[in-house]
């Protein structure tokens, strides 16, 4: 018994039944442990992945829900934008324990990748799907501002 999926651009077969939560297959069957379990109820966003480029909670999706879709985890985000995000996170020390951060990274990457001119308010609003308990929220928001400045500077250079 197996379920065929497309994860991070590659076809994979997972030894699990279709009712298995996506997060368990990603972590335990595919070894993609950057996706984290936080609450299991779509409240905290630690488990965020992209399904056909849209942010979705992987703790409540089942494998059957995504057999026709492209699933992208944080391990699959390695483009130039991801690098800019990483630089901003380091520059602002935007995280403490980092447990919430990979889900936040997925959401931020989505917001910045899908909008030609992303607005701070929109990006900040998208973070409403996430919780951070260390109080790194303000630093994460500063990192967002830093990335947007960088994107704007890049746009005006062009």
């Amino acid at each position, binding site marked *: 018994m197996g379920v065929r999926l497309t994860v991070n651009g590659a076809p994979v077969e997972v030894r699990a039944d279709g009712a298995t939560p996506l997060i368990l297959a990603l*972590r335990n069957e595919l070894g993609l442990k*950057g996706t984290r379990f936080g609450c*299991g*109820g779509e*409240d905290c966003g630690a488990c965020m992945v992209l399904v056909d480029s849209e942010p979705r909670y992987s703790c409540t999706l089942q494998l059957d829900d995504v057999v026709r879709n492209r699933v992208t985890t944080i391990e699959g985000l390695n483009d130039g934008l991801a690098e800019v995000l990483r630089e901003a996170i380091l520059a602002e020390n935007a995280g403490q324990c980092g447990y919430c951060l990979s889900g936040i990274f997925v959401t931020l990457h989505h917001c910045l990748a899908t909008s030609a001119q992303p607005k701070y308010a929109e990006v900040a609003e998208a973070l409403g799907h996430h919780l951070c*308990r260390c109080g790194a929220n303000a630093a994460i928001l500063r990192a967002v501002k830093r990335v947007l400045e960088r994107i704007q500077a890049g746009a005006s250079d062009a």
Partner: protein
Amino acid sequence: MPELGSSSGWNAPITDRFDLSRTGLVVLKTGKVELGQGILLALRQIAAEELDLSVDAVVTVSGDTSASPFEGGTVGSMSIETSGREVRDAAAVLRSELFDAAARKLGVSVSEITAEGGQFFVASSRSKETFWSLAAEIDFDQARGRSAVPKSPNLYKTVGVNIPQTHLLERLGGGSFIHDLSFDGMLHGRVLRKPHPDARLESVDTDAICGPGVLRVVRERDFIGVVADSEQALATAMARLERRCRWSGSPNDGSQTPLDILANADVTERVLRADQGSSGPEPAEDGATLSAVYSKPLIGHGSIGPSCGIAIVSDSAVEVWSHSQNVFALRDQIARVLGRAAQDVIVRHRLGAGCYGHNGADDAAMDAALLARAVAGRPVRVQWTRKDELTCEPLGSPMRIAVQARIRDGRIAEWKLATRSGTHMQRPGWGEQVNLLGPAAANAEFATTIQMDLPEHNGGSKNAVALYDFPQHVTYEFSANLPFRLSALRSLGSFGNVFAIESFMDELAELAGCDPVEFRLRHLADPRARRVVSRVAEISDYSKPCEAGFGRGLGFARFKNTGSYCAVVALVSVDETVEVQKLWAAVDAGLVINPTGVISQVEGGMLQAASWVLKESVPTDGTRLIAESWKDYPILTFAETPETNVEIIADPDFPSTGVGEVSLGPTAGAIANAVASAFGMRIRELPLTRERLMKAALEAE
């Protein structure tokens, strides 16, 4: 004595602390553990500084009972204060031993040699000797008890520098957290917790729980858990188990809140301070006295990642992985419960999600060990559910603080404060008790029967004595029988006490007709205290008038009256609900190791305190904790996050003091004072919810 966990003076072999067996690297062994606070980087900076190494050349072995020095817990904001000092002292001894060996070997005097990156130079030319070539020449055990003078701070090149916290980027991928550990043949287990503290497991149909993938149903008295071969099979079995268990007993009267229970509890009183002429004012007989009662509710840790533990139990050994704050204390209690010798149990620390005190980490590890006993030799991984986190972790005690004072000639002439609380300490081993959920359910002998708080000015009495200069009478009213599981939560009693003291200082300033900053400075002789208060007022434009509906407020404390100094200003707006617009802080932590790390901890404390002040109160029905999800225990969101600005007043002339807990109390005071200013009325019960504000507004009409 876990919480006192202050490390003992450094008088151990250097090999307890450093290992030079890997060429090019110095292994720093530490009992302190990474909790998301960046401690390991700071300790590496300290060692690298003394040894003139790059930070990358210092690696750590942390929190391993088989390899790390015993240093108590990673608690009480003490790691830099005590362990940092010891690492510095031990590194200075190591350096001195290495230099002596180099001088002998090279036939020159110590003053002629220098070292950089572990390479020795004689008169600027490279010698053939390095730290590692000489390591074998040193009798490390002989170095016990030696002392060497550490570097002078004015020569520092690595300490005080913002070495980037690159571990954050590493954690973006998988593999950094305990949750990511995987072993061959690993099984998954979980324990079904009692619905309330007095519940007993009357009956359970274990046959009905068995199903595909379920290996064991483990029952001992009121302990009932499942071991399965996958997380999915476990989740299915646990859902069946929940339906098949019958629990007896009912929780206590649901009409009483934890604060009601505290208010009516039997207490023992301890006088913390009784200055002459401070017996306290009689009930107000003139306009110059004031009294008020403040409170804070039950508060949870709410770590974003659930508690997790892994254990392998075999006939000869027990191996456990845990994100405990104190692997040694956990090791001792696991050994006690399993009937093993302590040396046969190894507990290794692995990173958990952010930790703010005694959460479920130790329980999850103990759960894993108890379940692993049923499947000898196989690794069992336990990961709690969010509901487990919200209903089973130890909580921060409710507190009620009553204070009275008299003003004479614009100064506080008398001050009487009584702070009331349950315990802030119930860590594994505290009071000779196991203090873990699994063993307490399995065996009455292991139940916690005595609640005992930390002594002296700690626990509920932390920061109950104000740092201000006025005659004080301060009493701690301790209740040893609150029907909740209470233990250490970030800043312990300091949060409630400083919230009350700083709120009352503003109320008294108003009575005295004085500006709140000026009023505080009038009662503060300590120059470091004056400096943070003045500085935060300056950077926040404290004295600038606010628009209608907005208010600024200030709060100050020196953590435990011996630690770091912190003053916070909040700018809030009040329009039915409170919005914190901005928070500023000035902090004096003496010698700073990594400024970014300090700012991060202070800012994290401010935002966590903002969450506590505005939103948090653990929902209860009598003694039953009823939150099922984050929806029932909301915390600060990104949309509610204020801008923050933290300024460090670095003073290398003073020893380093911890910063993890310093900003919570001052932030509570600052927000409460800002709300009182914006709203025109003072709410003395936390959290400052919309309902409380509306009720106060209605009552005022």
